[in-house]
């Protein structure tokens, strides 16, 4: 299954290599990886989507925490979370096909961000399935996708869930349920929304 981990890490040279090297060492394939800033200076947020058996998540989390410079790890796929991805698509289009693409973009709430005589560029944000839906429609409509760039997923838990950066830096109270380690059966029921995002 696909796991989505959010790891807050110190913004230091080489730390990303440590994170990716860990997944390679654990023989777990990374599907997507995004890295960027957070509300705290010096802390980066990485969202890692990885393919692994369901019961491997605790060990992946535990191994991430063992890396120096990893401040906090969250298995957001198990919780109610907003998961988004951004994609840019350059599509071959001339005067005759442009208007159809405009309509398509509207349906998918994509934006036209560049227009050239023989192509246009779409920007779309949403769940992975929404982006894949657009791609599918384009291919079925015999449009030529000249280029596509996807960011990979970013995730954030819903609702009242303050960032754990400060907590991670100071307070060591674990947010994860330690029970997930000592027995698979005690794990909380998987969140229903999870499947929507992983579809």
């Amino acid at each position, binding site marked *: 299954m696909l796991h989505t981990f959010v790891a807050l890490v110190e913004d230091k*040279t*080489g730390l990303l*290599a*440590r994170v990716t*090297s860990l997944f390679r*060492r654990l023989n777990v394939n990374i599907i997507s990886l995004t890295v960027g800033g957070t509300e705290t200076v010096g802390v980066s947020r990485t969202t890692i989507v990885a393919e692994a058996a369901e*019961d491997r998540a*605790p*060990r992946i*989390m*535990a*191994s991430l*925490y*063992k*890396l*120096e410079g990893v401040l*906090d790890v969250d298995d957001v796929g198990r919780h109610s979370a907003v998961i988004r991805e951004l994609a840019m698509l350059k599509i071959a289009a001339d005067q005759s096909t442009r208007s159809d693409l405009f309509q398509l973009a509207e349906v998918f709430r994509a934006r036209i961000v560049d227009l050239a005589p023989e192509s246009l560029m779409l920007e779309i944000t949403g769940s992975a399935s929404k982006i894949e839906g657009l791609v599918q429609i384009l291919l079925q409509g015999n449009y030529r996708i000249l280029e596509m760039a996807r960011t990979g997923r970013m995730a954030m838990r819903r609702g009242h869930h303050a960032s754990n950066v400060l907590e991670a830096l100071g307070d*060591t109270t*674990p*947010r*994860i349920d*330690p*029970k997930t*380690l*000592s*027995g*698979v059966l005690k794990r909380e029921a998987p969140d229903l929304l999870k499947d929507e995002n992983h579809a």
Partner: protein
Amino acid sequence: MIMDKREKEAGNHRNSPDTAIYTQPTPLTGAEAVWATLVGEGVRDVFGYPGGAILPVYDALRKFPIRHILVRHEQGAAHMADGYARASGRVGVAMATSGPGATNLVTGIATAMLDSIPMICITGQVSSKVLGTDAFQEVDITGITLPITKHNFLVRRTEDIAPALREAFRIAQSGRPGPVLVDITKDAQQNSAIFDFAAAAPQPYRPHPMLSADSTSIREALELLRTAKRPVILAGQGILHSGAMEQVRALAERTQTPVACTLLGLTAFPASHPLNLGMMGMHGESWVNHAIQQADLLIACGMRFDDRVTGSLSTYAPNAKKIHIEIDPAEINKNVHVDVGLIGDLKEILETLLPRLPGRDGAAWLHAISAMKGDAAVHDIQHLPDNGHLYAAHVINDIWRETKGDAIVVTDVGQHQMWEAQYYKHDRPRSLITSGGLGTMGFALPAAIGAKVACPEKEVWVIAGDGGFQMTCPELATIVQEQLKINIAIVNNGYLGMVRQWQEKFYDKNYEGTPLLSPDFVKLADAHSIQGTHVRHRAEVASAVETARRHPGTFLIDFHVEQEDSVYPMIAPGAALHEMIRRPKQNPLVETATEE
């Protein structure tokens, strides 16, 4: 030249450290800061090999009270630092130059990583101005060692040296220990900065956030312990790391629970204790493995269910509930699914459990194991008739008798390693030093040097095969230069014995690449001005061991043992823990027919 240096060191002519540098910020070069930090962290010995990119550090050595042991190959430096740490519990330190010096450390670092040994490797690096240009002897050693260190640092600025080194010490020793590498550019060594030891103190140790031994798990563990009929304690090296020897012993005695040891856990519980069953796993004795398979509760203490101790996982201890007490959350449910995971420091957790644990009558289960042991117990090989053959088991058993079990034994990897585990009975913690996880041939001689430097008052024995010994035998010269007294036993069977054994059992006796021509090891020793002797008959073993012990300097004994002897019992790869290949009857160490 060499004598001059020795005299200088013997006379302690080195300058004593200026203690003021620890009480007030002082400008130092980076090279001086390296040694000042090491001295401040309590280091007295460093194993190393100089070279261009680490020369500034070597140049500053004379100002500090640290003994530098010049090795013959950097792999030796890493194994020595490792052996030093294993024998003493203190952090071992190895030093090398950039490029090939650094890459030669790699096997030793991986060895320490797999066995969770606190060790620090300091490497020189090319100047920061040419970093990344494929400069002479430049290699990305932090990249290379990323997966085999607990953490590593690339230090480019002088002022970062002391904080990085101090953090390295904290990381190497805290939680589950491991090796840390600190790579320091040459310009960082050459430049000066204010050295402030106190301000360089590392962040306080932040325990792994997934540590968990809450009251519910403790209650569950206590309930399992109370109701178990056939419990077995699995004792691992974590007991030594945690210093929980007394607590494990109290647990065993209070609940009358037998103890099975991993290879690295062999010295964590006294061999002579009546509740000690012996070593478990691939070459564990049959009653130990049968006890585990029949158990209804396993209490795993500081061990990680390595494939060498479980046999096939699907058939492992099928009727047993499992309590896993372990400091590394990533080990819980990795290989074996456990019922209760108590994640934290073993000593603390056992101290929580023990007061709430009632005594227990374990007589029935202990009797049942005794019955399994019965005839399967190895005959007292001292009383077997001398049929002219010299077996490695005799050699090791005699070394045990002559040393009264009191030596630090450092083994290499292979058959002799398993025989050592079976026939040398260790009663003292840290008295067996061996590469378990990585299984590094060539480990014994350098690791023994490290052990001897750490514990000069102890008798140290190397037990190595003819194959592994040749991998690192240039370190004999290190022994001589450092005037160390180490006893060396080579178990020489003319083969890469363990590989040959696998070829015999699983590759139709196709002995490809395993027959091994060796030099005359006694002459090799002689070339180093080390005395030695050959032993070919059993009657000569004890006296040769005695001669070695009495000899004031290092002594080497080349034991020419039976060539095609095999280690039994043995579990074939993929077989269950109880499906052992037992000792054949023609072997003088045979078990009686009732066992078969």
